[in-house]
């Protein structure tokens, strides 16, 4: 078993810049309400992308399309060259092994210990032995600063700790891409930092990250590219320094100024 902590960094050196997520003309609607109106996006390996925008702009929906939690009606999407096919359980299983996701509400499995939370998916999906997955889980928990919580139950942890366990759980599948859906929005302010530090360390190691976030300073600091979504479209996109300092469209200007109120 490779050491997960090093794998992404290694991969980044080998194939940095190769496209890993490819989205073409993606459209999605709920009934007659179209929430994504033609998204084209290519994410390169090792890139860190921050998606910002008002609520209802479709940013979470876009993220959830990437691992198939949302079904889209038109367009195509592939991860690591593997196309997303909703009808094929096999294809979905393949794809979801390449894409990890972290949620706003943590979604740890409350009936399992922290260690078992991390071990469950690799044991079932990758058919690894318990011995192997347990040692991997310990490494990952150490990495997110929770080595001593292996036998704790999720409800004994703070929100920030739970979210870090969720990160370790996602990493246990050794994903090529990690999706972060407003992962600090449900946290008390004093707990945000510990989670963001873990995410930042992942970014530094070359993990490909797509994150929907309201933490603008974090997006500016860590992001390679910021995407501003508005009414179901990619409205503006660019390096954070440029985008934040010099917004081109009135919508983005308005959005950014509304944050300072």
């Amino acid at each position, binding site marked *: 078993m490779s050491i997960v902590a090093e794998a992404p960094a290694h991969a980044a050196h080998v194939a940095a810049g190769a496209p890993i997520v490819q989205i073409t003309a993606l459209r999605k609607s709920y009934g007659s309400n179209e929430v994504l109106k033609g998204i084209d996006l290519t994410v390169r390996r090792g890139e860190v992308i921050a998606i910002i925008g008002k609520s209802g702009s479709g940013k979470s929906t876009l993220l959830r399309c990437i*691992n*198939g*939690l949302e079904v889209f009606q038109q367009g195509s999407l592939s991860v690591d060259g593997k196309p997303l096919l909703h009808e094929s*359980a096999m294809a*979905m*299983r393949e794809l*979801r*092994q390449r*894409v*990890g*996701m972290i*949620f706003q*509400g943590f*979604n*740890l*499995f*409350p*009936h399992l210990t922290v260690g078992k939370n991390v071990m*469950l*998916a690799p044991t*079932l*999906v990758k058919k690894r032995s318990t011995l192997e997955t347990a040692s991997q889980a310990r490494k990952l928990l150490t990495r997110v600063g929770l080595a001593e919580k292996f036998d704790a139950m999720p*409800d004994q942890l703070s929100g920030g700790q739970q979210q870090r366990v*969720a990160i370790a*759980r*996602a990493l246990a*599948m050794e994903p090529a891409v990690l999706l972060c859906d407003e992962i600090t929005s449900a946290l008390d302010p004093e707990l945000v930092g510990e989670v963001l530090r873990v995410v930042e360390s992942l970014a530094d190691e070359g993990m490909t990250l797509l994150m929907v976030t309201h933490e603008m300073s974090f997006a500016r600091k860590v992001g390679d590219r910021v995407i501003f979504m508005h009414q179901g479209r990619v409205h503006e996109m660019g390096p954070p320094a440029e985008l934040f300092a010099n917004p081109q469209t009135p919508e983005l200007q308005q959005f950014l100024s509304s944050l300072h109120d």
Partner: protein
Amino acid sequence: MNDFSLWDILRNLLMALRWTVALSVIAFVGGGVVGALLLFLRLRAGKALDRAIGTYVQLFQGTPLLMQLFLAYFGIALLGVEVSAWTAATVALTLYTSAYLTEIWRGCVASIPKGQWEASGSLALGFGEQMRHVILPQALKIATAPTVGFLVQVVKGTALASVIGFVELTKAGSMISNATFQPFVVFSCVALMYFALCFPISLYARHLERKIHVHRR
């Protein structure tokens, strides 16, 4: 005239009690199996089947068990198949139980937050793995108390099988009371036996309920 002692009454009732217990167990196990099957179909299949099972549930919940027993007994006979009271009672009670249990369990599964499905799905777990390792362990915990509680309903429901001539506790009671002319004594004994059967079950259900609440804090 009266050569029945209290012991004779009790002894005969106890013999019949076996059949009440047997019928309850069969209804509960059979209903549980059918109910679980329906639950899986409902979770897995499309809208049409889901609605069909919903109608099935409504049908059994919306008609008296007595009618269901009549229909099972006389209805199947109309098809030219000879059914014993035993078969008819088993079939009717099993279907009746399955309708309630599948609905109770569906509610329990539905009460598991959507995030649990999404988190386990995004970890590449398949439907079976999600059910077995994530959803059911949590749903089962919630389901135990209402399921055990419903068992009480089944036990009491078996009394209705007496109307199609199945000799269980209630039927035995009325037969003995016809012979002894002591209906009050006989049916008091019958009632006590039902109580002795049901009360521990309710106590256990309540105990389970309390345990879950302690767990949740």
